[in-house]
């Protein structure tokens, strides 16, 4: 059997992924910071005042990317959970765990900014509309997932239980996304979709996309950093972790 020089599955091994994550995380963190600053600049100084809403619409530049990210992270969690269940790979479950707090953070931001945007435009911070309610359910799914994996002592059982919750809960994501089409909601329909031209000024769309990419880069950086701690904890009996601890002790 010939051995290929580069094998992507090499990085499914925690020992190999740990240093890779350590190298990649700062790159994504810097990318996120640059994109975030650029996004802020576009949001406040390039994007024009909205003809109908005035300045309050500028909440969109964090509201929409945060909402996209909260849904996307849940799907990625469900993906890694499925991989973990099927192939029994250790790292997949760790990735799912590492993603959850950031997903919950973006979910909270989407709800918070939505409330602050709803008050001046709809006259209410909160309404029990299908979009808002399903997004709130997503926040509870994140909390439930985090609580569940922390409540079970045996890591393998915690991984399995968490994976099942992540997979079942994933049904909620398309419900959130299509809720504005399926039901008569106070929340507006999608401003940006793959099938039709976006219903907003190009600079507004630009700001939103730059912020969305910033959120992506941020999520990747934070997740990689978090998974490094998880790997150390889970693999603490391995010899390579022992060597890593030697290095960290010497550096301290």
């Amino acid at each position: 059997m010939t051995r290929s020089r580069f094998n992507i599955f090499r990085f499914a091994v925690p020992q190999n992924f740990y240093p890779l994550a350590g190298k990649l995380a700062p790159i994504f963190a810097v990318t996120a910071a640059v994109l975030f600053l650029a996004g802020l600049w576009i949001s406040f100084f390039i994007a024009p005042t909205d003809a109908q809403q005035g300045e309050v619409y500028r909440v969109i530049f964090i509201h929409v990317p945060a909402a996209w990210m909260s849904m996307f992270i849940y799907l990625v969690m469900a993906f890694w959970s499925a991989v973990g269940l099927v192939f029994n790979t250790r790292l997949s479950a760790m990735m799912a765990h590492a993603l959850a707090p950031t997903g919950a953070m973006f979910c909270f931001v989407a709800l918070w900014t939505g409330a602050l945007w709803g008050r001046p435009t709809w006259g209410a911070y909160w309404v029990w509309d299908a979009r808002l309610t399903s997004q709130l359910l997503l926040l509870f799914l994140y909390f439930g997932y985090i609580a569940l994996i922390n409540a079970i002592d045996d890591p393998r059982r915690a991984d399995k239980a968490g994976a099942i919750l992540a997979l079942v809960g994933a049904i909620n994501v398309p419900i959130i996304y299509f809720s504005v089409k399926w039901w008569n909601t106070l929340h507006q329909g999608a401003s940006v979709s793959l099938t039709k031209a976006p219903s907003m000024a190009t600079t507004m769309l630009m700001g939103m996309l730059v912020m969305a990419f910033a959120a992506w880069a941020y999520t990747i950086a934070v997740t990689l950093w978090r998974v490094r701690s998880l790997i150390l904890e889970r693999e603490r009996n391995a010899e390579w972790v022992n060597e890593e601890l030697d290095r960290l002790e010497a550096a301290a």
Partner: protein
Amino acid sequence: MNWGSAEAFWNMGGAATFVWGSYAVTLIVIVVELILLFQRRKNTVSRLLRLRRGRSARRQPANVSESP
């Protein structure tokens, strides 16, 4: 450029509470997440180092009794 003056910028066309309330809280939760993230890293490393020291300390007396 959208803003004639710094006041106009901070005033956000009268929507200051809502716009700045959104951006400020977002920034705060991001900073909190980053602090928790690096605390976790520090805690993990110090806990593992402590565990290791505990293990080697327990091993030490056994080694002494074994050696003549």
